[in-house]
């Protein structure tokens, strides 16, 4: 049994998800409003008292079947569960529940694009679905999530990415879900993300800006 931390920032549905999770798991802790993905996770690790800790994103609707009862003695490994995407129905690690090693999280590099791979090079994707990643709560949050994920996929910055799998996912992101709530913003975000990578492929500093939400807010202004 490991500590659990719910990390939220500005997700409109965070409060609802938090209360629902807290009802099921009263020991869950919360980190709210910490700027920067890496910094928020470091803050989560600081609050934890166990060698590993669970991370639940603010937009995650945890499935009733998911029990947080996985156990391991690999205290240097990052585990990521699958989440279901409510717009395009993809099921993979994006937005899924994570089990992170506390001490490696505290020491992680904070200047990388993809946080999980900067914690440890030992990464285990778990095939079970933990949640629905309900990121489509308003236009900006929907666009932002799609933009960031497709940047990561298109830039191939995530270790162990499989080319065929990545291309297939990108293809789904840019084509499916316009009939779902805020689906058109997800598709726009996906396309913008891919274009952003193409335009800045060799500018690693700019690519890292996908974790800067103020920067993303500026990019989104064209749709407001």
């Amino acid at each position, binding site marked *: *049994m490991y*500590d659990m931390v719910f990390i939220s920032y500005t997700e409109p549905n965070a409060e609802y998800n938090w209360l629902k999770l807290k*009802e*099921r*798991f*009263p*020991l869950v802790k919360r980190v709210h409003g910490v700027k920067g993905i890496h910094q928020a996770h470091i803050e989560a690790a600081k609050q934890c*008292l*166990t060698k590993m800790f669970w991370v639940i994103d603010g937009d995650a609707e945890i499935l009733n079947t998911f029990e947080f009862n996985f156990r391991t003695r690999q205290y240097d490994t990052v585990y990521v569960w699958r989440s279901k995407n409510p717009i395009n129905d993809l099921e993979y690690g994006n937005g899924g529940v994570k089990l992170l090693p506390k001490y490696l999280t505290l020491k992680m590099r904070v200047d990388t694009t993809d946080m999980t791979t900067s914690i440890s090079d030992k990464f285990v994707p778990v095939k079970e679905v933990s949640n629905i990643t309900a990121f489509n709560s308003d236009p900006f949050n929907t666009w932002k999530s799609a933009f960031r994920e497709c940047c990561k996929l298109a830039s191939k910055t995530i270790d162990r990415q499989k080319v065929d799998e990545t291309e297939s996912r990108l293809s789904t992101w840019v084509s499916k879900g316009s009939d779902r709530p805020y689906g058109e913003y997800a598709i726009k975000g996906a396309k913008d993300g891919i274009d952003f990578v193409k335009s800045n492929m060799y500018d690693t500093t700019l690519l890292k800006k996908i974790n800067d939400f103020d920067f993303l807010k500026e990019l989104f202004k064209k749709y407001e």
Partner: protein
Amino acid sequence: MSKKIKLMDCDLVYLSYDEPNKERNYSDLKKKFPWAKRVDGVHGSDSAHKACAKLAETERVTIIDGDNIVKPDLMSQVIELIDAADTSICVLSFPAQNVINGLIYGNGSIKNWPTQLVLDMRTHENADPNNHKTQVDFCWEIKYLQMGNWMSWVHNNASPHQAWRAGFREGVKMCLLEGTRPSLDKPFDKQVHWKNYHRLVTWMNVGSDVDNGLWAIYGARLGCYMTMLTDWDHNNVRTFTYLNDLFDDIKPNSETSLKSEIQRLGNTLRDDLQILTGSNYLDPDQSKFFKALFTNPPRLKNDWIIENV
């Protein structure tokens, strides 16, 4: 030759803090012993006991916790000790029966103290930081003489918070070896004293038949879990304001959630510490059955005691 301690010769002080049933219990005490004095609301166990000692005008003082209902024959207790016994350093510990789980031992029970010893001791919040024996309890540093007769009932289940806190504190303390955490490299049940181990698993499993008993079970499991399986500083257990904040933060807000957490903690304690617990706890009928048949172990004999009548 022998020496006698008569409780009738000692001042009696009722020590309460935030117990929801403290006024009822005090009223009951005053009916039985109208001369009882009272200390209320002092923060910290060491400071609160010192306040009792300051109120006392006798060489020894009997201190009764705010959740106790005392037996009427308390004041007729006479303890005969051998002449060599140093009464200035020994505490007489009368066991109490816990109404949640039926255990009879020193937890929350009546103690008769040498007044000067209380004034001089440094424990809990006033402890020397380097003395691990005095951080969270009195009993590892001070000489306790365990009496055979139990003299009170501990009613620590008047609210979910009170029951949880009682269970949590014992869940922590019953794990400790003279104030330190046992090693995880050796079997847990081979390190803690068998009586403490049995008490711990009783706290973790018995009491669903009484008001708020599930909260005590939850507290005991959580206290043991946090002490043994996390990096939590168990010295925090001595600070009631800390415990109150913790309870506010983590209390389940439905019975379903409470039962689910009890099960989750039980599974973890069983799997990681091989403690005799698990998903289930004794249901109300089983708890009643246990309490009806369980025989509490005899208390430790001490060479100083000749008789407790």
